[in-house]
């Protein structure tokens, strides 16, 4: 017996409920389709709320249909509910829009499937009205927040990929079958929901009541999506002015508030609130006012309708047969809306992801940048079921799905978090450039200050790094420890993201993934972290972005209109953006300017291979423009550096001892520290050769450019490492960053070439090499992965801050510490004495973050250099006496990167020149302080306080113009005798304290910048040792030593901040303009692609479907 015969004999009655209002010509098609059903027990009821009376039209087409005419313009749900009062004895209701046309067997198949699957709600496969080969909906899913996500990416060609009966969370209201008793028990649709999300609400409640919602794809229904009965009356009624998005959001929220149990709500509401808050922030940033209003309005509306909501909630809970836990298993994991948004951002970029925002226009399609080139679409390749499980028989494509890439990203994130677990929990040790940050106010003050204590005192402008740190600290509510962690540890993901973005135009998602992971797998950044090299870390984070910006600013795309770049952005905006990036990176790593030049030159020279050098030559002027912009943005500091003369090169980095050069081989595998010594470190650079070996077309051309960049960076790094560049010695780690970016990008390009350029070739050496090199890229990250166990990526557990607390000046006194050692090991910004030996001073104890950025010129502190040189050359045994005028109380020789703790393991050894400690040992007035491994401390027995007073006369020493101490103001014993600490109290107005008649000495340069007032009257001033200040005090009393100089620091800093704000405004404005342009393009495209033959329905533009 056939199924048809069975249905004919004992078929349960089905009532088709068609809701219509002022229908178009499709109503007849709908009625004809219903009339043509092979299901024998089908009765058609047409509900017509408001509008013109369609009875005559219905009678002509379907004379057996019942028409229920309602004068009130009800919404769709409320209108459909009318059937509950007028029909009795029906087993099922078929809820229909008037623009649906079921296939003749659709109703029968849905009824059959309802019995077979014991489902109360059955959704058919909805296809396009005019082209049934295109899918519209095959059921829908929803996440825990009620956000609805379609299972198909419309328009999607129906080739049977969804033809399996399965549970879904939502049966779209266009057409679905529901058991009549369930409909009655639930009370039908929620009448408060005039439009939008009423199907979500009904299906959710059905599942709460223990019903099953499935899709029966064999039952096919054409849907015009042309009309939305009930919408217009609602929109013109109480909810006039509410957008469809607003309706959707508030109804989603109402459904959530109704359907969850109380305990579940307690857990979920904070999450929903957090998500909503984040959405609002992003929407505000992108000027998506409609979204902001919708999200906020959803909460306001539900609060306003709380009484009704509570009643509805009680009704739902009375019907509950199933716990929320079971319901949740039917929902999507995570936040569907967030993942959809992130997917758009990752695929389309920030602007394009928001291009559809505002106005509810269609968002750009999730085509990805290479959609036309690769069949890599997730849904195309893989058909995940609703629970996120891969169906049997579907062979996975490695890392092809978004989910698998997300998984890799999560694993990488987890490894980074694990690897930095010790760093996250506690403060950073004072190692390298990781000195503790001052408070956010002090950091800002430092940026605007006119005088700084570095060296012996300087009026050179502060580095822009202070402003960046101050800004970060302000944003993070003054948490400077958190600021430092974010700054340091954030460099890793930001850098990897930058490489991924750099590779985006090449179109291979796997390539982007491999490139980012390869970048994370290179030892360079971990070695930098282990050495506390913030400059290398920041370069690591920003150079990939700079390279991408440089490429954009170079307008290498021949297809772009002249003078225009990405999305039509003007050339001025492009190099301004490049300049901002360079300025940001240069604030912490001035040597990044060298990187920019290297990259520009590499792009140009690399283009010689492909014969496009003329075009690529624009990279060089673009780089220069960007550098110029960066210099202007940092103008006060740049001017200060320029005035330093020959010392200016020192800001790029200081030369290390050539004897400690790491060598060519180590550079090639980025082995600059504890990570990277393994032979496995060769694998990533080797894998980067893949694109050269098997790539073609643009992949080969760009591989050539990237490898040229890498070669130049390696070469320059090698020359600097070996000390061949003299005083031009940019930090080797910073110089190597472009090479690291090139290698990582080369790995990504290689994967892209693997996917693209080997297609169709017979198996041969290329496939073999490609497979091996792709595997090598994966294995090459193992040395970095192995560091995870360390918990701090090799950064020493303790730094000089703790070990050298004893050199801190006692309260009420003031003194300096002279630091000597290899510039790579000194925990403070320094000046070079000779390759491998640098010096610096700190005020009153161990260094702070303010000491990390030394001014380019040492100023009067240069005499410390000369004094140390005298000692090294055996030309004095009185170094302490020579250092005394500078108030140097302690001399710290740094021999290791960090103090060595016995039994715990040593840090990286960075010994100073071997003659230094023996030379200091010979000094009669330096007393070595016992204890400590990794450093040697000398107590200067001849030291005088930084601010001192004595009853005797002034200092008489003058600068020697000849002899061994030429250039030095050599103190006589009388010059150093009798001084006592004075002016030990610091306040905003200066240094205060009582003084007695005699002389007050201040070892603070420049001499003329300070004045002393005693009892409010100025004291006569004179220079001591030709740079320090001394004052004659005739009458004792309360005195104040204060700065008496034009506040150039504040003026320059203020102008710099204003300039940054202006540039930021310009760039944001440009970006918004681009976003607006994209939105317009998106709307126009959507209009072209989606325009129906008749009136376009707003009903189906709802967000998320």
């Amino acid at each position, binding site marked *: 017996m056939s199924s048809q015969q069975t249905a004919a004999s004992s078929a349960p009655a089905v009532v088709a409920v068609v809701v219509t209002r002022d229908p178009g010509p499709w109503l007849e098609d709908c009625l004809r389709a219903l009339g043509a059903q092979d299901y024998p027990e089908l009765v058609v009821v047409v509900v017509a709320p408001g509008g013109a009376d369609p009875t005559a039209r219905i009678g002509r087409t379907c004379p057996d249909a019942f028409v229920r005419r309602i004068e009130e313009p009800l919404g769709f749900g409320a209108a459909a509910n009318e059937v509950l009062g007028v029909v009795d004895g029906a087993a099922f209701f078929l809820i229909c829009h008037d623009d649906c046309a079921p296939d003749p067997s659709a109703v029968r198949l849905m009824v059959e499937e309802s019995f077979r699957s014991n489902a109360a709600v059955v959704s058919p496969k909805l296809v396009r009205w005019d082209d049934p080969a295109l899918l519209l909906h095959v059921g829908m899913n929803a996440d825990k927040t009620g956000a609805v996500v379609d299972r198909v990416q419309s328009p999607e060609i129906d080739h049977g990929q969804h033809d399996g009966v399965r549970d879904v969370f939502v049966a779209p209201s266009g057409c679905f079958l529901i058991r009549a008793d369930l409909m009655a028990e639930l009370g039908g649709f929620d009448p408060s929901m005039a439009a939008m999300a009423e199907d979500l609400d009904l299906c959710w409640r059905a599942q709460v009541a223990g019903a099953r919602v499935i899709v029966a794809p064999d039952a096919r229904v054409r849907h015009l999506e042309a009309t939305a009965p009930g919408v217009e009356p609602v929109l013109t009624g109480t909810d006039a002015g509410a957008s469809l998005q607003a309706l959707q959001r508030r109804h989603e929220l109402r459904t959530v508030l109704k359907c969850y149990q109380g305990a579940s709500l307690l857990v979920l509401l904070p999450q929903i609130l957090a998500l909503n808050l984040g959405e609002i922030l992003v929407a505000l940033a992108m000027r998506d006012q409609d979204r902001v209003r919708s999200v906020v309005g959803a909460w306001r509306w539900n609060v306003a309708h709380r009484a009704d909501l509570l009643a509805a909630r009680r009704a739902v809970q009375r019907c509950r047969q199933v716990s929320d836990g079971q319901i949740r298993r039917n929902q999507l994991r995570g936040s569907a809306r967030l993942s959809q948004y992130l997917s758009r951002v990752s695929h389309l970029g920030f602007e394009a992801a928001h291009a559809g925002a505002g106005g509810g226009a269609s968002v750009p399609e999730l085509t990805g940048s290479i959609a036309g080139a690769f069949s890599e679409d997730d849904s195309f390749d893989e058909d995940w079921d609703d629970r996120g499980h891969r169906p049997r028989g579907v062979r996975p494509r490695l890392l092809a799905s978004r989910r698998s890439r997300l998984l890799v990203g999560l694993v990488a994130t987890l490894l980074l978090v694990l690897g930095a677990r010790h760093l996250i929990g506690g403060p950073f040790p004072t190692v390298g450039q990781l000195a503790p940050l001052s408070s956010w106010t002090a950091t800002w003050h430092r940026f605007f200050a006119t005088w700084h204590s570095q060296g012996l005192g300087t009026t050179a402008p502060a580095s822009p790094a202070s402003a960046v740190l101050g800004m970060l600290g302000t944003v993070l509510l003054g948490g400077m420890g958190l600021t430092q962690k974010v700054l340091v540890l954030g460099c890793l993901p930001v850098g990897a993201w930058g490489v991924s973005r750099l590779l985006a135009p090449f179109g291979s998602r796997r390539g982007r993934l491999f490139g980012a992971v390869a970048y994370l797998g290179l030892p360079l950044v971990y070695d930098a972290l282990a050495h506390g090299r913030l400059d290398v870390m920041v370069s690591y984070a920003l150079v990939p972005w700079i390279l991408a910006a440089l490429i954009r600013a170079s307008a290498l795309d021949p297809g772009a209109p002249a003078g225009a770049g990405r999305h039509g952005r003007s050339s001025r905006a492009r190099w301004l953006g490049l300049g901002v990036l360079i300025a940001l990176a240069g604030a912490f790593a001035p040597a990044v300017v060298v990187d920019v030049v290297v990259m520009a030159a590499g792009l140009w020279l690399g283009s010689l291979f492909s014969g496009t050098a003329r075009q690529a030559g624009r990279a060089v002027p673009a780089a220069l423009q960007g550098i110029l912009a960066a210099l202007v943005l940092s103008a006060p500091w740049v001017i200060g550096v320029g005035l330093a003369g020959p010392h200016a090169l020192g800001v790029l980095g200081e030369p290390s001892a050539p004897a400690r050069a790491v060598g060519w081989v180590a550079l090639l595998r980025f082995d600059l520290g504890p990570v990277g010594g393994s032979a496995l470190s060769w694998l990533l650079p080797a894998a980067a050769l893949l694109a050269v070996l098997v790539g073609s077309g643009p992949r080969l051309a760009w591989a050539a450019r990237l490898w040229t960049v890498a070669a130049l960076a390696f070469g320059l790094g090698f020359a600097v490492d070996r000390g061949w560049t003299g005083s031009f010695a940019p930090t080797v780690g910073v110089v190597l960053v472009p090479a690291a970016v090139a290698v990582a990008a080369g790995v990504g390009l290689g994967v*892209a070439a693997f996917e693209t350029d080997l297609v169709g070739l017979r198996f041969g050496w290329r496939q073999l090499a490609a497979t091996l090199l792709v595997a090598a890229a994966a294995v090459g990250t193992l040395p970095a992965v192995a560091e995870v166990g360390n918990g701090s990526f090799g950064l020493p557990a303790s730094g000089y801050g703790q070990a050298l607390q004893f050199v801190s000046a006692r309260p009420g006194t003031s003194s300096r510490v002279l630091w000597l050692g290899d510039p790579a090991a000194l925990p403070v910004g320094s000046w070079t004495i000779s390759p491998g030996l640098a010096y610096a001073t700190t005020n009153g104890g161990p260094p702070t973050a303010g000491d990390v950025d030394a001014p380019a010129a040492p100023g009067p502190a240069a005499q410390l250099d000369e004094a140390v040189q005298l000692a090294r050359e055996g*030309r004095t045994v009185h170094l302490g006496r020579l250092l005394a005028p500078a108030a140097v109380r302690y001399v710290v020789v740094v021999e290791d990167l960090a103090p060595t703790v016995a039994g715990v393991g040593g840090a990286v050894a960075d010994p100073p020149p071997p003659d230094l400690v023996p030379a200091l040992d010979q000094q009669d007035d330096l007393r070595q302080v016992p204890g400590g491994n990794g450093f040697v401390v000398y107590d200067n027995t001849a030291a005088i306080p930084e601010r001192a007073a004595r009853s005797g006369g002034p200092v008489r020493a003058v600068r020697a113009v000849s002899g061994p101490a030429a250039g030095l103001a050599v103190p006589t014993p009388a010059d150093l005798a009798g001084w006592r600490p004075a002016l030990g109290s610091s306040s905003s107005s200066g240094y205060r304290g009582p003084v007695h008649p005699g002389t007050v000495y201040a070892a603070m340069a420049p001499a003329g910048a300070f004045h002393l007032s005693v009892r409010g009257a100025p004291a006569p001033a004179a220079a001591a040792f030709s740079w320090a200040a001394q004052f004659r005090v005739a009458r004792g009393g309360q005195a104040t030593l204060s700065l008496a100089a034009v506040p150039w620091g504040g003026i320059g800093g203020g102008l710099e901040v204003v300039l940054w704000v202006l540039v930021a405004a310009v760039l944001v404005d440009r970006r918004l303009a681009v976003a607006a342009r994209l939105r317009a393009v998106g709307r126009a495209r959507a209009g072209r692609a989606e325009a129906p033959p008749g009136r376009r329905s707003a009903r189906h533009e709802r967000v998320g479907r």
Partner: protein
Amino acid sequence: MSGSAPEFFEDAGLPDAGSGRGPARPGRVPYRAVLVVVLVAALVGGELADHLVHRPSARRPATPLAAIAPSTVESSAWYCAGGTSEGGSTAAATLQLLNTTDRPARATLSAVSDTGRHASEPVTVPPRAQVAEVPGSLVGGNFVAATVELAQGGVLVTETVDGPLGWSATSCSRSTATSWYFASGSTVNGGTLAVSLYNPTTTVAVVDMTFATPSGVEQPQPFEGIVVAPGALAVEPVDRYVQDARSVSTIVSVRTGAVVAAALQTVSAGGSTGLSVRLGVPAPARDWAVPRAIDLTGGLTVLSIFNPTPTSERVVVSARPFDSPAATFSEVVAPITTWVLETTGANRIPDGIPFLVTVRVRGRGAGVVVDRSEDAPSSFVRPQFGASSALRVGSGGGTEVLAAPGSAPNPAVPGAGLATLDLFNPGPHRLVARVSALQASGAVALVTVHVAAGAALSLGPAASTGIGAVAGLAQLGRVPLVVSATAPVLAVENLAPAATTGVVTMTGARG
């Protein structure tokens, strides 16, 4: 175009721009080979450059302890130890301060005794003159050490000691060090050996001492963790713990701080007496030389070659009498072991003929420390015994300054004077050396000589071979000498009265 439109993906003139789908067959692009070749060339070139270009060593340059500070220095200091005060009388120390500059040198002499007494006095040394100071007279006690601190350079300070057993001379040190080595020493037949540890710094020093004897390495507990306070002198009587050892080599290792170490050896057995005061050697070296040695019938000339390093060293000793083929001796010296080579018994070295000794270390080790000791028959003029360090090749300069054994009116011992002035040319080329006498009126040139590459030359009253005696030197034996050479030269004086060459010596200081 989507948001991530490939704007630099598309290259002019390149195939498949924008499509992402490349041509089916890679390898057709002609520049691939060029690119690969360039990359390989860069790779290999970098590696070659890394290997071929010399990488400077980070090793500390060896500076001689007794180099005279340039006259232009801001300040300088000399540290002297090893002698006794007049009260001790075994080896009463006298400091010889030689001012090589043409302006007066103002110095502060600070003396300390082993009893902890300190005293200091200002000293002024006239231009181009030498003065003698007795530190023991300031502080008394048994042993004495001193610091001579100067507000300039150009001054050489040496130390002579004399007593009932004889006399000796040594240079003082211009620096402290954290390790000191003494290759020779003996505690047999009533011989005494004391090591003075002088800490002239302001930091406490903690010192360990290790001894290598024929019976093995000894680290007596009393010689471990010796604390030497800042500015203090500690004297360690080695013979009390290392007894009846024919050969004692000593390592002074400073755990913290730095010291100056000097050894005082006395011999009084079988009618043969003598003493020697020696400044330690702060580091082993690979090449050593003794420009002039003589085996006497009935006497004993010994080379003590001490390997203080943790690795074995192959050492080759060459003894070359003037105008004769060299006799070569080779030995692998184990770590912390001393090779005692008695040249007197060697058939290939004739008695009575002066010979040049060179000691070279083969292999890559840090090197050895070499001492030479002489023991003449008791019938010879006293002192019959003396020991001194060999000359470290590489420590010499173009100018060598040798202080006189006391000033003419105040000799170190009665009749003290020059026996021979020995010059050794360690370089590969012949050099020309001019010997001058430093007098108040200026330098008086005495003689100009040629010294062949790798050869030694002796001048002076007792130089019976080679070019023989030079007229005038005998008369000027009690004035400082300056040797100016066209290449680095090593100079050493053999002083009289003494039984034979090498009993009392004074090494030149680089000027």
